[in-house]
């Protein structure tokens, strides 16, 4: 497989802001209203800066990150000798895009098979993300095997099976309550024997505070590494509506399973997702994919500039 064939599948096409805008049209920019009124002020004074801070906080950006961003903006505004609040929007957008930009935002498809593991808290969108991923990868001509390693949640396997069927991917399932690591191992072995290109493993949702279940996840990772494939991605799903807890989730899942990237899900509903700023700033973990809707084609590669625009809004907003 040619991993550099970026741009082949739906999920690998360069997205660009134009791709995002229609899907986020209803959600509007999270910062929009507050930012609009803050920047409509006449002077770039203390009240304006305070209003800016509140706008960021309202998008679930943490106080620490908001303060950092605003410090940078103040310095830049001073450097440019601008006292016009309207200039700040562009500066803020650039600052967020800078922070979120990552050179290693591309999914790693090398290996035979390449193995991707999806982890995250309950209800954050793992199974749906896998369904969309499988669809895009299969549509790009890759042979995909799905591992239904969520043996805990009732009917999780059935949910994934429905997706596998839609995508034309194979499904390796385990028994309810069975060992999830064994399912992952079987799926990778099966994929290797069948000459498949990619294994995507679903795991049961778990709260990152549950020590035992995080231990189980670490074991799944260890076992996946021993199987006859190459573990390339461990993706943590973060719900775009999540607040300050998102950082703790990414950190703990990272410690247990070595997270390589974030999938920001359900962004079409809120256009917030400010928690990924903290994840990037504090942990350095890049966002790799964004969920923009319920359709199979609504999972797109992360684009820092588009994300910043979605968050900050454009001048017309």
């Amino acid at each position, binding site marked *: 497989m040619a991993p550099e064939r970026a741009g082949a599948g739906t999920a690998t096409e360069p997205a660009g802001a134009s791709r995002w805008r229609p899907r986020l049209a*209803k*959600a509007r920019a*999270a910062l929009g209203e507050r930012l609009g009124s803050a920047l409509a002020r006449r002077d770039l004074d203390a009240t304006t800066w305070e209003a800016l801070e*509140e706008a960021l*906080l*309202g*998008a*679930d950006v*943490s*106080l620490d990150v908001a303060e950092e961003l605003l410090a940078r903006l103040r310095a830049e505004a001073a450097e440019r000798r601008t006292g016009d609040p309207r200039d700040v929007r562009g500066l803020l957008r650039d600052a967020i895009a800078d922070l979120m930009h990552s050179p290693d935002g591309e999914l790693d498809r090398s290996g035979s098979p390449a193995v991707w593991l999806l982890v995250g*808290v*309950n*209800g*954050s*969108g793992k199974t749906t993300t896998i*369904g969309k991923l499988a669809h895009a990868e299969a549509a790009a001509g890759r042979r995909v095997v799905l591992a239904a390693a969520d043996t*805990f*949640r*009732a*009917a*999780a396997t*059935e*949910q994934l*099976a*429905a*997706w596998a069927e839609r995508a034309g991917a194979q499904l390796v399932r385990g028994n309810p309550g069975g060992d999830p690591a064994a399912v992952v191992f079987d799926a990778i072995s099966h994929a290797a024997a069948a000459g498949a290109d990619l294994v995507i493993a679903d795991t049961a949702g778990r*709260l*990152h*505070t*549950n*020590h*035992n279940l*995080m*231990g*189980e*996840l*670490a*074991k799944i990772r*260890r076992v996946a590494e021993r199987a006859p494939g190459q573990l390339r991605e461990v993706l943590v799903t973060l*719900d775009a*509506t*999540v*607040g*300050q*807890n*998102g950082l*703790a*989730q990414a950190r703990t899942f990272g*410690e*247990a*399973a070595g997270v390589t990237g974030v999938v920001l899900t*359900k962004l*079409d*509903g*809120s256009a*917030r997702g*400010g*928690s990924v700023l903290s994840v990037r700033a504090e942990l350095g973990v890049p966002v790799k994919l964004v969920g923009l809707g319920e359709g199979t084609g609504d999972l797109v590669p992360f684009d820092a500039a588009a994300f910043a625009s979605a968050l900050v809004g454009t001048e017309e907003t």
Partner: protein
Amino acid sequence: MFETLSGHLEEVFGRLRRKGRLRPQDIEEALDGIRRALLAADVAVEVTAAFRERVRERALATDLHRALNPAQQVVRIVHEELVRTLGGEAASITFAPRPPTVVLLAGLQGSGKTTAAAKLARWFRGRGRSPLLVGADLTRPAAVEQLRVLASQVGVPVFSEATDPVGVAAAGVAEARRLGRDVVVCDTAGRQIVDDDLMAELRGISQAIEPHYTFLVLDAMTGQEAVRVGERFGEVLGLDGVILTKLDGDARGGAALSIREVVGCPVTFASVGERVGDFEPFHPDRLAGRILGMGDLLSLAEKAEAAYEGEQAAEAAEAAERVLAGEFTLDDFSEQMRQMRKLGGLGDVLAHLPSAEAAQAAESGVDDRRLARMEAIICSMTPAERAQPAIIDGSRRRRIAAGSGTTTAEVAELLRNFAAARKMMRSARAPTRRSTKGRGSKGRGPKGRGPRGRGGSRVTPAGGVRTAAAADLLEQLQDLESGSGRPAGPSPGGSEGRDPLAFPGR
């Protein structure tokens, strides 16, 4: 769940306490701390601002300079405002005079509606009702299948058919009437609030079944979006309450505060774990105490009471007496562990205790499997060994280790910790124990200061802990918690239980 908020406030007021008297700038500093804490807890920006203003006004209006302990007064003001924001009493369900009582659940994708539906049905069943679950989520693949599996776990029938959500809901209520079921819990598909079509569909369901109660199922980890979610679902459906889910995580759940303040609807139920029984009515007044770091002792005491009910009560009382008499044996130790497991596991117990340390311990890996291993070790001892652990030598240790499937090191560790615990119990017998632990302002606080005050914060006054047995259990747990061992590192995979008795220290 609110540990971070508690931590922040404790820090702020810790500083105030040392100063003793408040100057206006002290108040401002405290207010800044409160703001930071509330924001970190995901309380909505506008709610935070309003809250801060209310506390400021009241703090300035109170003659703090002459107060004996200004810090405690500020704590009280914050506490009262939190209670006021969260709403006074726990909500209750009034059943319809002409059954069935119809309950509609709605919410965003992944908020936990299907699981909450099954848990709620179980809760009704536990109250002598005969609920029917209606699966009207025809969108998510296998959602109805998930509901059926959960329903069979809680012993409640399910109605669903592959038509359309409005039709299913209406037919479900008719079916309940036909079967004589007196409660209907209707699960719906998750939806985005910006999806006007799906919101209209939801309104259609609501109009078709005219629910007596409409609950918004809300993830406790929700951030600033919570207010908009509450507002939108409220507009479309009219909400009677919120079911707050995933409260067993470390999310501070500030969403509860925001929703109450902005949308005006109370949190009615809380989902606090993965098991179907981990579901309880939400007590706003308790939550305020929890936010301030006072722990959720009432909830725990209630659980302890339930666990102690019936024949266990006598046994427990006896054990408690032996403990007080200093005759704490390995059998008691083992019994204690069983009781802890009944309470929902040690992690659960620690999470309810007031200290931030306990909360951290609960997070960072008190492992119920350790309890099981410890029990196994004790069960592998002879009665003589249990009565007199001192006789256990190397050879006996090897036998016990082999019998319990553990290592001699683990056996030794358990014995060491048991010795420490027993010592603790003995010293705990001293009548002064209830007053020696409080630090800070000694006894100068407002009256009604409960037992085991920690640094100025109060355990819920006037019988916050209901039974002597429960109180004793709590004390033992706290002693154990503070009394021994090395911290259980949150090392991934550490659940293999290398140190079976390492109750996390501080």
